[in-house]
């Protein structure tokens, strides 16, 4: 494990390319990101400060603050950054690293459970089938939720990448481990 910046470049770099990640260092702390941030004016989330903290390697402070999860990935700052810092992608990368170290809330982990069970983050239920019929559609769209083999493909991906382990997924109960006892890890 290197500094947070190094980890970000290594990890995010695999997906976005290193140069994309390295734009973090070009940040001049002008504050244009925070200034236009819909979260910033409603929560304690401070985009600019997050980057400064990332650059000063304040890993624990960042990972332990709930604000990290208040970015809605709206890309407003990404579009406006005068220095072309790839803000939103950097935030997502920091979140990835935090998640890897276990900083993930139960509701966030539950989203994974839905996908593992149904292939959808927002699955179909009986009530919604009625809605579909009401507008003249088949009660179930032909998505992976409908076909077991297709669902298994999605599950294979989650298993391969270790996402199931990351959220502590229990294949027996098809739920988070210990969810019956409140879901705490």
């Amino acid at each position: 494990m290197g500094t947070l910046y190094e980890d970000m470049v290594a990890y995010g770099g695999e997906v976005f390319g290193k140069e994309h990640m390295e734009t973090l260092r070009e940040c001049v702390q002008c504050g244009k990101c925070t200034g236009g941030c819909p979260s910033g004016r409603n929560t304690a989330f401070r985009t600019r400060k997050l980057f400064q903290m990332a650059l000063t390697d304040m890993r624990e402070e960042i990972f332990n603050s709930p604000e990290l999860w208040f970015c809605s990935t709206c890309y407003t700052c990404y579009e406006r950054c005068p220095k072309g810092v790839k803000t939103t992608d950097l935030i997502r990368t920091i979140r990835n690293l935090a998640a890897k170290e276990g900083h993930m809330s139960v509701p966030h982990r539950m989203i994974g459970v839905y996908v593992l069970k149904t292939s959808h983050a927002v699955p179909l239920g009986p009530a919604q089938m009625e809605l579909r019929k009401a507008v003249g559609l088949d009660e179930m769209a032909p998505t992976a939720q409908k076909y077991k083999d297709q669902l298994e493909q999605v599950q294979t991906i989650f298993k391969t990448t270790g996402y199931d382990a990351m959220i502590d997924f229990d294949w027996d109960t098809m739920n988070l481990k210990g969810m019956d006892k409140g879901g705490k890890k």
Partner: protein
Amino acid sequence: MAAKAETEGEVEEGKAGISTEQMTRNTMESIKSTVEDSLLEKIEEKEVDVAPEALVIGGGIAGMYAALDIADAGFKVHLVERLPSIGGHMAQLDKTFPTLDCSACILTPRLVDVGAHPNINLMSCSEVIGVEGSVGNFKVKVLKHAKYVDEATCTGCMMCEEACRLTGRFPNEFDLGLMKRAPIYRPFPFAIPAAYSIDAGTCLMLKKGKCGKATLESTIEAVKKVERGEEITKDEAPPCVLACGPNCIHHDMKDETVELNVGGIIVATGYDIIPPETMPEYKYGVYPHVINGLEFERYSSASGPTMGKMNVAGMPEPKDAVFLSCVGSRNKQVGYEYCSRVCCMYLAKQAHLLQEKVPSCNISVLYQDVRAFGKDFEEFYTRVKGEGLSYRRGLAAEIYKKPGSDRVIVRAEDTMLGEPIELEADLVVLGVGLKPSEGMDKLLEMLGVALTPDNFAKEAHPKFRPVDTDVPGVFVTGCAQGPKDIPDSVAQAKGAAGALLSLLARGKATIKPSVAEMEEALCIGSNTLKEMAAKIEEGA
């Protein structure tokens, strides 16, 4: 490891002195040989006579100063300006930082000097359209656009403008469209040359061949009649011609091409402001409250559209104003990565002027770094801050209209507090940056001068040859080379003048033989490409 290094260091110390000495000696030898090589090359160089005239392209403050120094030394200078008057952007400014001198007041005498200088041939409404030759002997073609008014006889009495049927209809470029002019106009009262000119694009006679009952033919005839001392009627000539005392309006004037032979050329084509529309989140052009820095200068100027009162776009004086730094500049995203060098200071000055004009106004300046680097700049910045306006660190993110109000809101983060802020304002001034002036790239291409990645003119060496270019005898200066303030532009202009003067004073220039050499056996003896092509064809 550390301990080892330490002892090694100690042992080495005595030696280090000598070996270092030796090393640098080697460096020196190599440098010496480089220089000798270059001297050898010199021996082969040829000398040519230098035509004792200079061409300065651009009549802003840089071009004016370059021209004045050369002319004062006794050499003829041709000064080519694209617009109807010299003076450039400086003529548009209200006051200058950090001394708060009235810009027009300190500029006007110099305008007059240039206009009246016996050694300066001032060509306004003109463009360089062709350059041939090399240092010492540049053959330059200048296109003089028809002004339709005889510069020598026009007294600038403005009677024609008053009389024009379309007077006060068209945006005056000098006032950035905030005031209106006639098709026959003078950009500003203290313009040099003081003569009027007609904008062919808006003049009825020039556009349609007809103004009232008068046609182009009847007008030309009428002008001749007046010359002969005969009376004319309003059916024969347009109102401008009728009103003109000295009879100096000639709608049949044609563009003219002038050929010059000059020893050297100075490019001083200045800058344009970066269009504020490049940052749409600031809503320039959407809300009247949002103006750019140059517009502020016109509003603030006593000779501007509001005679210096801060009634922007007809609104009452502002209660709250916000100045925004780095609009366009230092912004990779919009394509201007460089710093524009003057905005921090002009914003400080403008904030000060607004404070002075509207003392009750609440003023904020949003910035990222205050670049108060020049002589007395830091002191001025401190003074302005001390006047009670608030400098807040953080660039504005966006501007929107306050619902149910005619005010706007500027969103930003005060990065020193680490908190997002919303500033209500009824005036927002955008500190727009500087970019190379339109068309400079084409001119430079003609001259063989390259551009730097920021699209300004490329100097021969950014550090040691700031006014030379790779083309001997061609110099760049002022904002054509990169954004700079007035004193730096003046110093650079005089620097370019110095370089050119030393060429003119000596009367000789060296030319690398490679430029002129040719293989005689292959030479088919011709001066033009056309002839040459014809000869080759013949031979074939």
